[in-house]
Structures are given as C-alpha cells and as structure tokens.
C-alpha cells in the first residue's frame, strides 16, 4: 500500500503546537430533541477527554447516544447544553475551524452513488481547499491507500459494501485530519473487510491521527482502542483502558477468571446476556 505523505502530526496545532490540549474534550454535553408532544433526552451530560494520538473507543448499545454524541462533536448537531472542543477548537463557536481539522465517516457510508470513486475523492479534496493538481495527487494516494485503484473510475453504485466503507474512509482523510471520527465503521461488513478496515485504522493512527471510534463490536474495541468509554442511556457509565476496566471488574466482583470486555459491558450497562442479544454483537477477528 502507498504511503500518504501528509500526516496530521506534521501540521501545527491550533494552540501553537504545544500538543498539550486534548484531541477531544467534552464537558456536560447534553442533547435534547423536542417534538410537539415530547422531549427526548438523547445525551444527558457526557464528559470526555481524548488525548492526541489515541484510538478512543466509544461503546454502547443501540440508542445509547453514541451517534448523537459524535454528531455533536463533528458539528452536525447543535449542542443543547455543555461544551466541547475538538483539536483545541470550540465546536459551537467555531464549527468551520473544527471541520477543517476533523475527518468524519458516519454510520451510513455517505457517498454520492452516481459519481465514480475518483470523482468523489477529487471533489472532497477540492472542497477542503486543495488545488485541482493537489486534489488529483491526493486522490491517487488515497485510492492506493484503500486499495481501490482498479475500481476508481467505476460508478460507486456498483461498489460492494466493503469498497464503499473504504472509500468513505478515504474521503474522511483527504485533508489529513488531526482527529478522525469513525461511527461504526465495520457494521455490516464481512470479516475480511472488517480486518482491512482495522488495518487502515491502525495505519492512520500510527501517522499521528487521533481516532474516535464508535462501535457495537466489543472485540473491535479490544483490538483497536487504547482507551474507551461506555455510554448507556445518554450517560458515560465506564471509562478507562480495556485492561484497566477488566481488572477493575475482576477486583470488584472477586472473579476467579479474567473477565472479557463483554463482561465489562454487561456489568456497566446492567444488561444480562439474554437481554443484550441483538444489541451488542461479538465478532471473531
């Protein structure tokens, strides 16, 4: 695979390159959806701190508030109350500056189906301010990175699910973001495609990009994440390193064996294996 020359670590930080500010910080983040009849509290006061260079996992059952939190952090949803900074920039007051510093690949691979992969990447690069020549070069680099060179000039409509995911990931990288948000990037993928995405995430992180990853797959979090937080019913119920969370559970419950991340998750969310069936899935790498 080809190397991508521009990396997040080569770019100056917004605070003059001190590197001291966290990649993501949220304090008391709240999101309410108000309709005519009711107010739904999707996120109820989330506090987060993600250090630069980490792969941070954000776990939770369906409807726990993962995607809503990501959408607030990526400027796609307004914040009801609380505050958040990404790459040292305030999300609510400087959304455009945040957008310049982040890459976003959401749950649905957001692609324009009637374009080719090359056209889409080129357009995305141009929207982030690259010249036509720079955009063409960057497009070639990214197509190589996600191994889509042979399909580059085919309509995206004909891509497989795995190809669409990889292209989506590439579109999030056109401007070498400091922080990459991946919202359930492997949902619906076959095991081989899932492993390819995992490799990409590791490679991207090795180049200095902080990765904020939401997932329902506990093994994915175990494999990829330096630290993680578990959200349930709009609140963070656990956070720490995977090893630390397991050790804590073993100590608290005086378990005879080492618990898995599944056990940590079930303990944190108060679910049983029966109740959680269909909400959280285990995968084998």
């Amino acid at each position: 695979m080809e190397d991508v020359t521009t990396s997040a670590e080569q770019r100056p930080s917004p605070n003059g390159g001190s590197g001291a500010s966290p990649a993501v910080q949220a304090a008391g983040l709240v999101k309410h959806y108000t309709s005519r009849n009711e107010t739904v509290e999707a996120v109820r006061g989330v506090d987060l701190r993600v250090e630069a260079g980490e792969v941070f996992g954000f776990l939770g059952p369906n409807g726990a508030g993962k995607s809503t939190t990501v959408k607030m952090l990526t400027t796609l949803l307004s914040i009801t109350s609380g505050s958040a900074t990404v790459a040292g920039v305030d999300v609510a007051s400087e959304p455009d500056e945040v957008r310049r510093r982040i890459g976003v690949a959401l749950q649905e691979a957001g692609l324009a189906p009637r374009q080719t992969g090359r056209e889409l990447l080129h357009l995305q690069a141009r929207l982030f301010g690259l010249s036509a020549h720079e955009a063409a070069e960057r497009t070639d680099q990214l197509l190589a990175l996600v191994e889509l060179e042979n399909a580059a000039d085919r309509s995206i409509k004909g891509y497989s699910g795995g190809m669409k995911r990889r292209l989506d990931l590439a579109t999030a990288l056109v401007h070498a973001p400091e922080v990459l948000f991946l919202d359930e990037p492997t949902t619906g993928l076959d095991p081989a495609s899932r492993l390819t995405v995992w490799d990409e995430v590791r490679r991207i992180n090795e180049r200095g990009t902080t990765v904020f990853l939401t997932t329902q797959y506990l093994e994915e979090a175990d494999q990829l994440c330096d630290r993680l937080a578990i959200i349930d019913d709009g609140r963070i119920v656990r956070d720490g390193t995977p090893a630390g969370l397991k050790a804590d559970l073993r100590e608290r419950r005086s378990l005879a064996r080492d618990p898995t991340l599944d056990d940590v998750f079930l303990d944190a969310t108060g679910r049983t294996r029966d109740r959680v069936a269909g909400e959280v899935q285990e995968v084998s790498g």
Partner: protein
Amino acid sequence: MTQAWLLGQRALREGLRTPDALLPTLFIPLFFLVVNVGQAAKIFPGDTTAFLHGQGYGAFQLPSSLLLAASFGTAALFLVEEIEGGYFDKLRATPIPRSAIVLGRLIAESVKGLLIATALVVLGLIFGISIASGIAGFVLLVVLTALWAVVFSGFMQLIALKTRSAAATNSGSLVFFPLLFLTPNFVPRDLLTRPMEIAATFNPVTYVMEAMRSLILEDLVWGDILPGFAVVAVAGAAMLALNVRIIERYD
C-alpha cells in the same frame, strides 16, 4: 463560489447519468403543447385572433410548456436521496459555506433549464413558431425559463430539507399545477372571468408567463418583460435565503 460551482458540476454529472429522469422533462411539456394546441387552435385561428399577433396558437401556448419543463427539476429528489444516504452530512462536515451546498444544485438546475428551454424553443421554431423579439428575445426567453427552474427547484429543496422525505417532496411538486392553471394559460388576462382574472393577477407565475409570451409574440416590450424578471429575482432571492437559513439550522 468555487465550491458552489464544484458542487454544481457534480450535480450536472449526476443529471447526465440519469437520462431517464431528464427525458420526461422534455416529453411531458411537449405532450401538453401538442394537446392544448390540438384542442384550442381552431377556436383561436392565427389570422383572425388579435392576441396571437399573426402567429399560431402554439406560439401562445409555448410559455406554459416552458414553465412546466422548468418545474420538473429532480434536484430536490436527489437531495432527499443524499440526506437518506448520508452524503448530505458528509457535505455538511466540510468547511464550505452552507450557501454553497444549496447553490451547487441550483446552478446545475439553471444549466439544465437553459438546455431544456433551448431544445423546446428550437422544436417550436421547427414547427413554425417564431420569436418575434429576435435573437435577444430568444436569449431572454431561455434565461427566464432557466431562472424559473432555479426558483422552483429552490422551493422544492426547501420541502426536501424540511421534510427529508421523498414522498413529501414529490407531493410538494404538485403545487405547480394550481400555480400554472391560475394564470392566463389559454387566453390573455383580459379575457378571463373576473374571479379568474383576480386570481391570475395575484399569482406571480402570471407575470413570468406574460413576459415569455411577450418575447415570443411581440418585439421587446420591456413593460411586459421586466415584471417577469422581477418575479424570478425576488422569488429566487427569497428561496436562496430560506434554503440557507434552513440548512444552517439543520439538526
């Protein structure tokens, strides 16, 4: 503006790659032109009907078909598809002005409007309609049609952004039919019944239609032409402002 043009080019590529969505835009207005002329041409013979200025009834009907063609834009339905598929959020996560996201599709609609209007007028010319205001009138006619396409697409985009539903957006397009038929569609305004005349006078589409008709049937009569351009200018500005407002508050 660069970003809007880039997004406009993308929307144009999209349009060219879906000819099945473009063809009805040409075919249905032609169908209405042929049917309406077939039904009323004998009632209004060209040589004895003063309001036809010596032309056939097809020349009088051409503006209705141009307006209909310009109101068949697919931009809003493609927008709903993008909202549902997630590409709209991908665009919102880029650091481009929100107005560029709106303008991109409207630019594409204006180009499509120019091409479709040109095709319809050229077909009209082949079948004996002439543009009495000459080359300048021809240009003004297709530009006015394209501007109306932008206005109506802007309105449809508003529905798409508000409802995020293909079904609701499709239904919204039906609003054009009362707008088109509450006009001096078959006869000049002074020949309408009093209630119909009042309704047509309050309908802004009337002034666009009369401007088009004037360009086809008469020399450059600015008193008829300018109100049409004023309507599309005001309505276009309003649609753009409302679209930007709704996209900025999009949650």
